[in-house]
């Protein structure tokens, strides 16, 4: 399973990617939104996990862009911005799941599994 993780905080990025690798996934990482968008085009991952507050392009923009493409790659939004309006906006744009920080890496792993099983 090819998963793209976009998150600008290096330790978080490392933690998430280690956790997912433990589950046997193939993980690609980036710390900014622009690179994430180009990696999506280039590698077409099976799943995207993205933060909202990132340099160049926000996670919400990534969701919006991905969901306007033909191949609707599943997206999990992972953000400290857990306000209701942000969550609703993320789902409105087509996000498949929303996890608010502070989050549990184990829970993330479960949600990934569930999403992939669909």
């Amino acid at each position, binding site marked *: 399973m090819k998963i793209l993780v976009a998150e600008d905080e290096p330790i978080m990025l490392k933690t998430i990617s280690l956790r997912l690798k433990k589950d046997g996934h193939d993980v690609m990482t980036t710390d900014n*939104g*622009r690179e994430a968008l180009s990696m999506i085009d280039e590698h077409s991952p099976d799943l995207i996990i993205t933060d909202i*507050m990132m*340099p*160049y*392009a*926000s996670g*919400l*923009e990534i969701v*919006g*862009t991905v969901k306007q493409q033909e191949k609707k790659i599943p997206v999990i939004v992972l953000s*400290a*911005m*857990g*306000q*209701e*309006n*942000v969550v609703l*906006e993320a789902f*409105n*744009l087509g996000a498949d799941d929303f996890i608010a920080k502070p989050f549990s890496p184990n829970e993330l792993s479960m949600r990934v599994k569930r999403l992939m099983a669909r």
Partner: protein
Amino acid sequence: MSVWQVLYDLFTYGIFVYSVAILCFYIFIGLYSIGETRKYIRKSTFSNYNILASSEHAPSLSILAPAYNEGATIIENVRSLLNIYYNNFEVIIINDGSKDDSLQKLVAEYDLVQVPYFTEQALKTKPIRGVYKSNNPVYKKLVVVDKVNGGKADALNVGINVARNQYVVCIDVDCILEQDAMLKLIKPFLETPDKRVIATGGVVRIANSCEVEDGKIVRVHLPKQFLPRMQTLEYIRAFLLGRMAWSRMDGLLLISGAFGAFDREIVIKAGGYDTKTVGEDMELVVRMRRYMIDNKIPYSLAYIPDPLCWTEAPVTYKILGRQRNRWTRGTIETLRQHRRMFFNRKYGVLGWVSYPYWFFFELLAPLIEFVGFIAFLVFAFLGMMDWKFFAALLLFIYAFAAVFSVFAILMEVMTYNQYKKRREIASLMLTALLEPIFFHPFTVWSAVKGNIDLLRKKKSWGEMSRQGFATKKNAVVLNNG
């Protein structure tokens, strides 16, 4: 003693006292800013700004960006504004009757359609032609207002009318913001419990020669060109020493028009931007402060020393001259309009320190310097010069100027350290030594021209609005003090 002798004595003593006062003030500013800077740096080691981004209860804000013929860069600038770190905000682009295709470009790129929109007419402005919003939910925070041309102040007033939120952030559309800029700019509004914070202002830094990608500064460099480098030094001095000290005294008269946040309600009550002056940013702050004092409401202003906003500085003498000329006129107009504050006890620090400082050391300094220079020529021509003493005096002043600039560089290095290469710091030091000789006379001359223009064009202020403000970028008055 002849009359001439008396006049002559008055002249020399007057100038001497004036110079001593100005030197003392500079020393005071330099030393007084240290404590404030240190405190700020220390507290930011454990401040968590993210609460503001993640709280449901964070105040709402409207970012106002007036645009006049900015078609070349507007798409990218809007994108970077929309990607700012904040939750509860809207971006209002005010198209001030641009003659280019700015509006068409925005409509195409962001999928905009005209919508019915209620705007309070709290401030009187030129008419709005239409309000546009995006069909694409990704851009739902964007509002574009198309209006009849009326100049920057008028465009900002329209923005203030249209804004739905508690705070308005006024920025130049071509500024490059750090992504956490809004978090830092808004925090002081919430941090001063027993006073109403009416405005907060940020630092403006010079972006020439910096590496920019997709509307974001990637790497900071010292400008390679001569004039921008001189201005970099000026900005460091003004923002790191001057503003910091003024903010500590609670005597700030200016929040740069390129980047500042205001309490919308107070802006409206104070009457909004004045469309008749070229110094609308300074004038508004002074008027808001007067409003608060006149109505006896406890208030304060905050200044954030972090480099949050980057802008291109003029590269040619012609444009720089025009900019300084305009700043001079703006200062004079503002001070004239608010002359009641001059040594007025009611206005406290403003009346007794800020206003007199601006009057004597910002407004009069170039004129006095200029008169001094003329007098020097006359005396030299008449053979009345004591050259040895003159040389010593010149050396003294020059060395003092160098100390002040070098001290500012020291503060920059010890705080934000934007220019990390040793070569860049060396170059900045050299700039400090060259500035009094090559750059300063030019700024004096521009200021003198500003005075002359103001006297000459007194009656034809109406033309202001038609000029637009394409060249009014980074309208920050740089007060060293």
